[in-house]
């Protein structure tokens, strides 16, 4: 935040939820649409949509599968973070395999808006190559 010169207080506090091999995080703001705008820009349109807000808290696993085509194994806990404007949450996606030695700039190309909300994983190198081709 300091590096990007974002004034404190404007954003509240930034919360970072890190995905691991056994935990997948996803972010919502059920009462309004709190989001770290100043850091990430505008959220995806569906982030403000009531159907997303209502369903993700009740059945995150089903919502991710049906709406976002993200199917997570039972061995992975899905945790929904319901934000306030005091702490605005983003997801830190897992680093895809096959990216050893990649630079920060190269890795950044694997990060999508959806992966920062937790409705997708980061792109794989193969997916990135497909998109580029």
């Amino acid at each position, binding site marked *: 935040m300091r590096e990007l010169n974002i004034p404190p*207080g*404007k954003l*509240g*506090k930034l*919360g970072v*939820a890190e995905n691991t091999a056994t935990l997948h995080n996803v972010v919502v703001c*059920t*009462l309004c649409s709190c989001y770290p705008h100043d850091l990430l820009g505008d959220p995806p349109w569906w982030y403000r949509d009531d159907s997303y807000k209502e369903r993700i*808290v*009740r*059945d*995150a*696993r089903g919502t991710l599968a049906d709406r976002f085509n993200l199917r997570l194994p*039972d061995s992975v*806990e*899905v*945790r*929904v*973070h*319901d*934000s*306030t*404007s*005091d*702490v605005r949450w983003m997801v830190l996606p897992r680093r895809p395999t096959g990216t050893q030695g990649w630079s920060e700039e190269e890795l950044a190309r694997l990060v999508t808006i959806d992966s920062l909300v937790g409705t997708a994983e980061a792109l794989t190198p193969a997916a990135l190559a497909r998109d580029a081709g």
Partner: protein
Amino acid sequence: MGAPETTHRFHVGDRVQVKRANPAGNPRTPAYVRGKSGIVTALHGSIDNPLDHRGLYPPLCSVLFPVREVFGGASQDTLSVDLHEDWLAPAGA
């Protein structure tokens, strides 16, 4: 408005129950967790947020709830909800 009050009444690991109503408090507690119990997992202090709040809100905690305790069913997944302490009471063990 003085310095942010950051003294928490609760600690990480405490079991807490969300009040069903809190007429004097702020309205930023989702209806679905009211009356439910969870575990405090993080303390954020009292956050200066003059654009969104009139005055300073009480300290904020992240509270973790099993989805099945909030909505029923058999889900093994969890909900982490950020709640101001005036909405929380100690829960029985």
